[in-house]
């Protein structure tokens, strides 16, 4: 029997359409959460992904439901790119019973295991070994699946980074470690907290490929992810991809962001915006028409509006839910 090895494909019209829609969904979702949060309606705190859309979307464009991802405290974008239901996500952020986690987890713990979304995470660095575990299952059960670990520049200094990547490397596990280097961990700049110039430079120590990508360019992310995922599916082991990106909002809602400069905000948010860039690209490549893009933009506004309505109209959990799902069984 000859096994067909997966090969590189170029970006199709359908894929481009999906990518544009997902990026717009993430932006619209986060802008909406930003707006609602400022009214004091939402419980707890939220970390928004706006500005980093190209990373989640460029990578997840290659994944299907059997593939897993691990995420971070800034997880809404990963959830959307991995196909989580927006109504269920929004309801979760509101703490409603109809939320993807039945209101038990909230923004920082949105998960949908059936979709391969192994959870946003409240613990920085939590995702490294979790992705390795999913990849171990894929390898031993020969499912052909890969696991992607999204993590921040701050997380790259956590001990789990080393333990997770080393483990994936020695066992040649199908993991793609995707750094979202947005320049800051809370108020602490990457350049202060990390001894390396680039996160990808650390790959050499694990004997795996490390690649630096413009995280504002979804096509570049898409291509780098494709190389890494092919490698992983072909049993050649993990890859470390570093996407240079930027978060448009503060660390969490309410952060005054004095550590950023006006110029850098202007550049990243206005000039280098990933969605605008991709919009220009698909038009120039004649992948999508102006009319199609308009249609997507209109639809996305509607989708997010519906998600908010769904969340607001949904019931809260019941008292008896408090003790449900602590265990599968417990006597």
């Amino acid at each position, binding site marked *: 029997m000859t096994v067909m090895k997966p090969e590189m494909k170029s970006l199709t019209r359908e894929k481009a359409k999906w990518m544009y829609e997902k990026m717009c969904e993430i932006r619209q979702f986060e802008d909406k959460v930003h707006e609602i949060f400022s009214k004091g309606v939402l*419980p*707890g*705190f939220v970390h928004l992904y706006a500005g980093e859309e190209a990373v989640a979307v460029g990578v997840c464009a290659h994944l299907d439901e059997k593939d897993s991802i691990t995420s971070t405290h800034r997880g809404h974008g990963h959830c959307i790119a991995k196909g989580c239901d927006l109504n269920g996500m929004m309801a979760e952020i509101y*703490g*409603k*019973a109809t939320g993807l*986690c039945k*209101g*038990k*987890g*909230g923004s*920082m*713990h949105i998960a949908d295991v059936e979709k391969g979304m192994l959870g946003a*995470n*409240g*613990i*920085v*660095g939590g995702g490294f070994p979790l992705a390795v575990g999913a990849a171990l299952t894929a390898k031993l059960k020969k499912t052909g699946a890969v696991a992607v670990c999204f993590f921040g520049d*701050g*997380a790259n*200094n*956590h*001990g*789990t980074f080393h333990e997770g990547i080393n483990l994936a490397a020695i066992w040649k596990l199908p993991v793609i470690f995707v750094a979202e280097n947005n320049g800051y*961990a*809370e*108020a*602490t*700049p990457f*350049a*202060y*907290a*990390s001894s390396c110039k680039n996160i990808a430079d650390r790959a050499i120590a694990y004997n795996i490929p490390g690649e630096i990508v413009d995280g504002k360019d979804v096509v570049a992310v898409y291509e780098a992810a494709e190389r890494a995922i092919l490698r992983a599916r072909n049993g050649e082991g993990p890859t470390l991809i570093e996407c240079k990106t930027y978060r448009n909002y503060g660390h969490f809602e309410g952060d*005054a962001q*004095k*550590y950023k*400069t006006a110029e850098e905000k202007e550049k990243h948010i206005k000039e280098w915006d990933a969605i605008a860039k991709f919009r220009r690209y698909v038009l120039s490549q004649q992948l999508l028409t102006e009319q199609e893009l308009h249609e997507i933009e209109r639809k996305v506004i509607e989708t997010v509006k519906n998600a908010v309505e769904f969340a607001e109209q949904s019931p*809260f*959990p019941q*008292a008896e*839910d*408090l*003790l449900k799902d*602590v265990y599968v069984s417990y006597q």
Partner: protein
Amino acid sequence: MTRKISFSEAINEAMKLAMRKDENVILLGEDVAGGAAVDHLQDDEAWGGVMGVTKGLVQEFGRDRVLDTPIAEAGYIGASVTAAATGLRPIAELMFNDFIGSCLDEVMNQAAKLRYMFGGKAKVPLTIRTMHGAGFRAAAQHSQSLYALFTHIPGLKVVIPSTPQDAKGLLLSSIFDDDPVIFFEDKTLYNMKGEVEEGFYTIPIGKADIKREGSDLTIVAIGKQVHTALKAANMLADKGIEAEVVDPRSLSPLDEETILSSVAKTGRLIVIDEANPRCSAATDISALVADKGFDYLDAPIKMITAPHSPVPFSPVLEDLYLPTPEKVLKVVAEMIGDETIVTV
């Protein structure tokens, strides 16, 4: 002289006074200064911790003594252990006590045990300040109260203040204590204001405080739950029941004497602890009284705690999760066999 300041300001003031008094006192943690190596940032614009508790310290003491760390708890908490053992007196901030998973070895196997293992030839004057507590809608990984975990480990001291005045005096004692102390700060208390003495003062670790005197029953409450107990006590007073509220203030060491003598006086004990109930501060204090004060008891000991579950996110569930004055009244009603006290 006293004035009204917040719990958070009291903690900030204690650190400031300690750092002025002793140049070996340093502060390190994630964004405790904030914006390290950002050229344009003025020190007064720096974060000063996620909740602003350490604000202003970098302005006065500089970045050599107020150190922003990478997100590397095993690294900087571990380094604090031997920084303490070799001549400094570090205050290490573990942003949320839930992150102890990233550095438990450094606390449990290193800080706690060095002195004993080395035959008394080392001391570890380290204070780990950490945030705990539910009610902040912060979900399961940012809301726990893990003080029992540390109380279990010999070699560590465990301090949990409930008022601004106590927080300042106990933190100063913790910093100048020669043993490692885990200092718990309830995140929902930071804005609470109270009268706080000016200047340097200490409150001894291991000395409970009677927050309210009463003769009918004893309520021992931990941290923020002291306020639940006080509210319940006021409601009970309206029904003619006088509750004594005992705040242990530290779980290790535990002021057994104050607890036992209160129960000797009242004959009844309720423990309020918002942590999970198994192997907890509540069971520990209950066991103490069952063991050494059984003869004082006129009724079974009662515990009011969180259930044996993680902290839920949804506000409606989290409100059910926590102890409340109403829950206390219900337990008292059962305890004294008078249902009328729960009816308002």
